[in-house]
């Protein structure tokens, strides 16, 4: 009984964590992609020094 409750709750816990975690991870990657890797000229010029300093491939 107890074991069953725990399994159900941890499975539901995993579900309620996985989706928000994937969403937050994707937003985080988006931030890095925009500030670090997109080659659009304005963006590149504004982020130029940061890209060099954090070691992203710049130009």
């Amino acid at each position, binding site marked *: 009984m107890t074991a069953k409750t725990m399994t159900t*709750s941890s499975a539901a816990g995993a579900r309620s964590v996985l989706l928000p*975690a994937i969403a937050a991870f994707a937003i*985080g990657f988006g931030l890095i992609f925009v500030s670090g890797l997109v080659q659009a000229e304005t963006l590149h010029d504004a982020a130029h020094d940061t890209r060099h300093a*954090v070691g992203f*491939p710049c130009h």
Partner: protein
Amino acid sequence: MMPRMTRVTPSASPATEMFSRIVTSGLIAGAAAGLIAALLQLWFVQPVLLHAELYESGQLTHFGAETVSAHQNLGPFEWSRNMLSVLFTMMVYAGYGLMLVALMAVTEVQGNTVSARQGLLWGLAGFVTMQLAPAFGLAPEVPGVAAADVQLRAIWWLGTAVATGLALWLIVFGKGWAAWGAAIILIIAPHLIGAPQPDSYAGPVPPELAAEFAGRSLGVGAMAWTLLGLLSGWLWQREAQGAPVPQAA
């Protein structure tokens, strides 16, 4: 045992609550570590970058007719340029913070406890993933060095970060030699394939400056990443403990 069971109670903690906990911890830790990183960069990295730009733009010539002094006037503090750099460095670290805390949250459901002390290790792993492993093939470049096509480098850079991150995950959370073997392959493969390299070493920047830049970039990265991990772990644990049981509105 007791506090963990209350924390994992699913009906009291819907996905939106979890999302806001991840985003709060990740963004605060990321912005704080990013601000420190930006200040360290302005102090230690930017002077090397500006110095190299004098060679990149042709104002100075390495091995030219006359000997060039290693001490150059780098001009006044450029506010708008440097504030943009602070903003973008904070954005990059906010991104790192979100990804880091999202992964922390996933491991916690599987029984791993995340604390500030554990956060230090997470931060080191993040540094290895996002900076050290890519730098093994593509050292942080000062402006004006010779390099291969930027798209090719970006693909290799990203692939190396993904492979290394996955490998570290398998080493820590994987069980058995199948997982660990895969981890070793994932760590080494990008470097056996090799990063895109330039056809010739035609960069006009003195190697002394390029080396100093690479060392400082990695050093600042290591400092900022360990801080990011520490803060992320601490904030995440604090959020988890202090999280009030959400009431249905």
